[in-house]
C-alpha cells in the first residue's frame, strides 16, 4: 500500500537533493522498481494465500506467504466483533473485521472484505456469540 509513495519519494529525493551520481541512481532506480513490483505483486500474492471461514462454531483465518499462519477461535470465546474501514478502503468499498477473544495473544483480523459482506458477517458473528455464553477468562 505504501510502496508507491515511498518509491516516488525516493526518486524525488534523488532528483532534487543529490548531485545525480550514477551509482546512487542505479540504487534508487532498483529500490523504486522493487517497491513498484511489490505494489503490483503483493496484493495478488496475499489474495492468493489469504483465506477465511466462519462456521457456527468457530472463526478461521489463514494468511502469510513465507510463514503461513492459521488461526482458529471458537465462537464461545469471542468477546467483541469490530469492523473498521480506512479512507482508502472506503474508496474501494472494503472493510476489515476484527474478532477479539480473551487471549492476550491478539485478535483475529479478516482484512479487505467487501463492506456489505463485512457488515453482514459482523452481525452474524454477534448473533452467534450472544447465543453462546462464557469467555473462559
Amino acid at each position, binding site marked *: 500500500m505504501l510502496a508507491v509513495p515511498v518509491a516516488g519519494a525516493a526518486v524525488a529525493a534523488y532528483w532534487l537533493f543529490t548531485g545525480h551520481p550514477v551509482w546512487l541512481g542505479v540504487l534508487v532506480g532498483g529500490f523504486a522498481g522493487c517497491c513498484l513490483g511489490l505494489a503490483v505483486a503483493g496484493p495478488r500474492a496475499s489474495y492468493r494465500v489469504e483465506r477465511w471461514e466462519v462456521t457456527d462454531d468457530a472463526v478461521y483465518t489463514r494468511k502469510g506467504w513465507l510463514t503461513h499462519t492459521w488461526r482458529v477461535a471458537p465462537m464461545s470465546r469471542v468477546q467483541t466483533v469490530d469492523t473498521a474501514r480506512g479512507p482508502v478502503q472506503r474508496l474501494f468499498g472494503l472493510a476489515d473485521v476484527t474478532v477479539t477473544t480473551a487471549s492476550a495473544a491478539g485478535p483475529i483480523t479478516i482484512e479487505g472484505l467487501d463492506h456489505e459482506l463485512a457488515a453482514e458477517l459482523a452481525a452474524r458473528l454477534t448473533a452467534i456469540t450472544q447465543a453462546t455464553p462464557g469467555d*473462559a477468562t
Partner: protein
Amino acid sequence: MSWRRLPRRSLAVSAVLSLGAVVPVDVVVVRVLHGRDWAWGTIAAVAAVAAALIVAGVVAYDVTRLRSTRWRLTPERLELRSGVVSRQHRSVPRDRVRSVDLRADPVRRAFGLTVVKIGTGGHGDESAELTLDPLTVTEAEALRRVLLSGAPADVFFTDAPVLAGAPPHEHEPSWGIEAPRAEGSSPGDVPSRGSGPSRGSGPSWENGPAGAARSVEVVARLRWPWIRYAPLTVWSFAGAALVLGALYKPLDALGVEVFSGETAAVVWGWLTERPWVTVPLVVAGNVVAGVTGAVLLFVESWGGYRLEREPGRPGAPPARSQDGPAPRDGRWRVRRGLLTSRSLTLDESRLRGVEIREPLLLRLGGGARVKAVATGLGKAPEGETEDVAALTPPLPRAEAARIAARIAGARLPESVPHPAAARRRRVRRALIAAAAPASAFAATAWWIRNGGAEAWNRAGGLGAWARAGEVQAWIRDGVLEAWVWGAAAAVLLLVLPLALVLAVAGYRGLGHGLGGRHLLARSGAVVRRTVALDRGGIVGWTITQSYVQRRAGLLTVSATTAAGDGRYDVVDVGGDTGLDLAARAVPGLLEPFLVRGGSRRG
C-alpha cells in the same frame, strides 16, 4: 450495605514510613549547615523542624486519603471510592475477582495492617487491580475468604469493626443469615484469628459458619535444604556489582565519595600491579557477595513459605466453569516472606494450568520452580523480586513435579519428543550462527593480507587516526591480520561448541503431551518451560509454519488462552502430529478445517 473506612492505624504507619524520608533530608541539612559553620544547637533545631514538617505533611496527606476512601462489599459487587484530588468510584462484580493478594511490610505488620490487592482479570495494567491500602489483618483475612469462596458475606459484616465514628450497628447485614452474635461483645472487638468464642456465638475467622469441615491442605512448606538452589541464578555473578550500584546513591548523599578520581586510581594501581592475583580475587569476591545476596534474598522472600489448598464450601454450588472439564472450587494460597509477609490466593476455577520453569543454572543443579498460569494476576509491586505467579521457591525437580501435578489436579501427561527434523533445524541454526561471524572474520583477514586494508587506509577510508605510523605498521607487519584470524578461530572454538550444546539442549527440551485434562508443552534451551495448560482454558489456536519449517515438515502450534502469557507454543512439532494434537486437545474446534490424510489444509 454501609460504606466502610480504612483503619486509622494507617496514620501511625505512614508517620513511621515518613521517617525514611526524614533521614536523608536531615543528613543533607546537617551537612549544608555544618559547612556554613552554624552552631550545633541551631542545626539540631532546623533538622528537627524539617523532620516535623515532613512527618506532619505525610500524615496530613494520609488523613485526607483515609477520609476520602470508602469501600463496601455488597452481595454482587465490591466497590471502592477513593482519590484526594480526582475522585473515582470503582465497582467490581464479585464473580470477576480472580485473586486476592495480601502484603504487609514490617511496619504495617507491627501495626496489624496489611495491603489488599484484588485482581480482576482484564488486560489493563491499572484497571486489573483494586487496592485497599491498608486493612486490618482480620478484615483482610475475612475479605479474602468471602471474596473467593463465593460464600455469603454474612461472616464478614455481622461482626466486623464498624465505620469509625458511626454508631454501632447503624448498618445491618442486608442479605444472608446473620451469624448469631454474643450479646455484650462490643462491635469493635474483633475476635482474633482462630480463637473465637467457643460457644459458637461469635463467628471466628478461622472456623467460619462452614465449620471445621473446611480443612486446609498444606501441599508444600519450606524446607531449609532448598536454600542450596538459591544461588543458582545469574544474579549470583552479577550480584556484587548491583549491590555496589544500589549503595552508591545513599553513600553519595552521606558524603562518602566512592568513585572519586583518587580512589579509582588507587584501585586501578592495585589491580594492575599483580593482575594474576587480584583479578581472580575480585571475581571471587563478586561471586561471594552475589551468593550471599541470593541466599539472603531467598531467606527474606521464602521464609515461612507454605502452599495450601483451601477446599470450597461443601454445600456451595460448583464454581462456574461450564467450559472446564470438572468442577474445581478450591482456592490456592501461597504464603511467604520473613520480614514482609505476602499471601496470594488464587481461585482454583480460574487457574488455567501450571508451569515448571527450569533456568539453565537451576536445571544443572537439578532444581525447578513452579508458576501458576492464571488470569487476574497483576504486576509485581516495586522492589519485589519474585514473579507474582510464583508458587514455589526453587526446589528439587521431583518435588516440583509433585506439586505441579497436585495443583493441576491430575497426573501431568507424558512428554513426547519431537521429530529429528527439529534437532537438525537447531543444529543447522547453531552452525550458521557460528559460521557467519567466523567466515566474516576470515574474509576480512584475507582482505587485509591482500593489501586491501592498506590501500583503503591510504585513501583515508579508516579516518585520520588510522594514518598514524603505528597503525600503518600494524597493518603492514600483519599484526592486525593475526588478530582477525585469531577472532575467527575464537568464534569457531568457543561459540560453535556452545551453540551446538545449546542446540542439542534445546531439542531435548522440546516436547508435548496430551492428558485427560491438560495439554503439555515443553520448550526452551536456556530456560526450559514445561506448561500444562488446562484444555478447557484454550480459547483458540494459532498454527504457524515458516518456509524452513515447511521444508522440514514441522510446524508450531500455539494454544491461545486468557491466562498467563496469553499463548503457549508447541514448537517444531511434526506436521500431522501437531494438527492431530490440536484437534484432540479441543475436540470439534479444528476438525472442520482439517483435511485428514496429509498435511494439506484448506
